[in-house]
């Protein structure tokens, strides 16, 4: 029993262990360059789209291992529309709303076929992948459209100057004070939430995990936050993209863990028939998953054109692979019903570390694809094999 418990524990934290090992590996191979403040910043700033897309992809995968192949093309298409509209001088806020609306519309279009007509998601989104890639070219007329709207670029974390101004320490401070304050606040909130919920459970007489486990977790997470905040502070401070990523993660962590809608995703993926017989509208669940994916793809499109200060017909290629990879690496089950937003964050960070690590090492871009493809396969093999052993 105790041995089994240890094994369960190891399995629960496998991905974190692997993340640590991968970070250690790249730190060694890059002579420590991976952990330079600039690279730490880039893991977040360059991969903001991965976090956003992976969060949406998780909902699709939860419904039964279904994926959305169209997200890369949707990112590009919505980005292209936004860039063109901004260039025409449309009001920025209107553009933001329109981009999100278009994304949601595209999502709803695909979701309709998937949920109500039962066209397999793989086919529906494969079609979307072609359609919206093609339309991106049409919208951009095959050319690059630069994005020069300053507020838009700054707000969505792009361009050269993508950091929240340090209004506490001032521009002259050696360490970005805002970063450290935010980091400190994050730790306080985290610790307060953890221990308050623990105290509440004890008061009501419910089971709680052993105190040392809670403490170890608290110490590790606090240490990670301190490390991040310090590294970011050493560079230029808080990337604006990080704010957006944090908001998205917070919203979806809450939805998946605390709401009935979130619970429905897990139920459908776990046993669709049982869910239907429990009075839950399973079609609606599929619809929400894919419509929401369109919305988040539009948001990722904004982050992408803002960061690049331009839109090109080739943007967003292979983004779907990054998102899908993050989910499976982060512990989502290829059969659906299992997976968490925090897990996906670990997966996305791992993908980011691999991306940046290989870039610093100067690995050929083609080999980078090979490595990422194999990592994805390995993650799913791990999931499938560990499932088989249980039954």
């Amino acid at each position, binding site marked *: 029993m105790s041995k089994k418990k240890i094994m369960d524990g190891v399995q629960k934290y496998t991905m974190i262990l692997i993340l640590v090992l991968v970070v250690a590996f790249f730190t060694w191979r890059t002579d420590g360059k991976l952990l330079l403040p600039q690279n730490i910043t880039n893991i977040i700033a360059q991969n903001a789209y991965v976090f956003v897309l992976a969060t949406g992809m998780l909902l699709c995968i939860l419904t039964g291992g279904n994926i959305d192949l169209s997200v890369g093309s949707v990112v590009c298409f919505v980005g292209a529309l936004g860039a063109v509209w901004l260039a025409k001088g449309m009001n920025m806020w209107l553009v933001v709303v329109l981009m999100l609306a278009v994304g949601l519309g595209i999502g709803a279009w695909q979701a309709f076929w998937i949920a109500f007509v039962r066209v397999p998601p793989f086919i529906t989104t494969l079609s979307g992948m072609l359609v919206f890639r093609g339309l991106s070219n049409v919208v951009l007329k095959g050319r690059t459209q630069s994005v020069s709207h300053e507020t838009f670029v700054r707000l969505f974390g792009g361009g050269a100057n993508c950091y929240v101004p340090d209004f506490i320490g001032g521009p002259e401070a050696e360490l970005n004070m805002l970063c450290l304050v935010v980091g400190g606040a994050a730790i306080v909130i985290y610790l307060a939430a953890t221990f308050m919920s623990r105290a509440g459970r004890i008061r009501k007489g419910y089971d709680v995990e052993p105190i040392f486990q809670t403490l170890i977790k608290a110490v590790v997470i606090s240490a990670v936050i301190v490390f991040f905040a310090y590294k970011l502070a050493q560079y230029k401070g808080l990337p604006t993209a990080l704010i957006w990523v944090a908001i998205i993660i917070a919203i979806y962590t809450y939805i998946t863990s605390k709401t*009935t809608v979130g619970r429905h995703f897990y139920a459908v993926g776990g046993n669709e*028939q049982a869910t239907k017989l429990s009075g839950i509208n399973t079609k609606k669940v599929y619809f929400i998953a894919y419509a929401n994916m369109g919305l988040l793809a539009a948001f990722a499109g904004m982050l992408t054109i803002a960061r690049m200060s331009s839109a090109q017909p080739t943007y967003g290629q292979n983004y779907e692979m990054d998102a899908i990879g993050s989910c499976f690496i982060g512990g989502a089950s290829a059969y659906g019903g299992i997976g968490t937003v925090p897990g996906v964050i670990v997966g996305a960070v791992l993908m980011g570390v691999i991306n940046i690590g290989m870039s610093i090492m100067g690995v050929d871009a083609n080999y980078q694809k090979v490595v990422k493809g194999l990592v994805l396969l390995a993650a799913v093999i791990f999931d499938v094999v560990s499932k088989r052993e249980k039954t």
Partner: protein
Amino acid sequence: MSDIILEMKNITKEFPGVKALDDVNLVVKRGTIHALVGENGAGKSTLMKVLSGIYPYGSYTGDILYNGEECRFTKIKDSEGKGIVIIHQELALIPYMTIGENMFLGNERGKAFAIDWGDTYAQADKYLKAVGLNESSTTLIKDIGVGKQQMVEIAKALSKHAKLLILDEPTSSLNESDSKALLDLLLKFKEEGMTSIIISHKLNEVSYVADDITVLRDGKTIETLHKSVDDISEDRIIRGMVGREISDRFPKRKDVKIGDVSMEVKDWTVYHPIYREKKVVDNVSIHVRRGEVLGISGLMGAGRTELAMSIFGRSYGSGISGELYINGEKVVLNSVKDAIKHKLAYVTEDRKGNGLILSNPIMTNTTLANLPGVSNRGIIDTDKEYGVAEEYRAKLNTKCTGVVQNVGNLSGGNQQKVLLAKWMFADPDILILDEPTRGIDVGAKYEIYCIINQLAAEGKSVIMISSELPEVLGMSDRIYVLNEGSVVGEFDGAEATQEKIMAAILKSSNK
């Protein structure tokens, strides 16, 4: 060669927690038709699976002697190689392939890289003729009826050079004339020297074709009756099938007042969801009262589950017609959500497939049918959820390490309790329990019976669908008997006996 083709000696087969076969003996004479009869779960199909190698040598104990030599089959190919061919109850044909392709599937004519289609269809036509089927072997399976499909199965068996043919409920999905044709074909084969073993619930058919009849009950051989030696009337066979003592396995309900009618179904007719011309429930009218435990008895495939699920928010079937009254008021339940709103609950017979989410903890399973009960405007109160799960765990005495344990790791009986908890938490007035004690041990069964009594005492209506006659008799205030989609009998719980119920079923089957 001796005149005994097959002898199965002291066969015992255990599944985790259940002894499916317990020291079973079967002797089949060459050139005869041997019938295996028994209630659902008596072990007939299991015995045939042992014989055909689906349960390989080593997974059971005992000996199989075929033509006097001991056999140790490890896969179906082994038994087929010896000429033992089994035809399963569910047809194993692929709809979008031709008769010929189906017949030689896995046994293709010609070479592996060059199938000889000419030979395939010539051979297929030959065997089709042997079973008297007037169809071209290039016809697609989907284009011929069920009766003809069953004939194709038999032709397929012949193509494997069958010497011993095993038919598991071959006529269960056939109409009267198709059944007759099939049975006559078996008699014709018998003349030609073929030996057959037939599993059937239709005792009139058994009396018609069988030379010997072996009765199984609870995984044991009870007796073998021989035509022309023993009485093989249906009554005699029924006595063998059900003749067990009913001991005090059922807790008594004390002073439960049976009240007004809580739900009434009138002229309820349901068609198959895919084969839309096939009637599955035929003009059924039933009612249940408050505080009453209503038993619904019948053989597998009698339409009981289909009736229950079609009432429960139309979760099964097509072309549903009829009227439904709850507390005297006419209602139309178009979805499961509607049904739950009208305080109806259906606890499925298939707890793993349709009931529980095995990869989720007890807690989330308990609240799935009533999430609003633990949430506020779509936000789940996890503490409250934990409390609810804990309350039902204690109430139903579910054995687990905690309510966060995954349901998949629980035993069958405890899974059933979680499933009951889920529906009890949905706070229904009328509960339909479909095979509530299937596959669980005696102790857990008793606990489930106590829960049923508790529910009745609270004034709820409990409809219990069960294939186990003793259970229906021991628990019900009133019993409906269903057969082939129709109500064929209604008995007061105190007056009903196994013989009466079986007789009602068999009488209607003979029609």
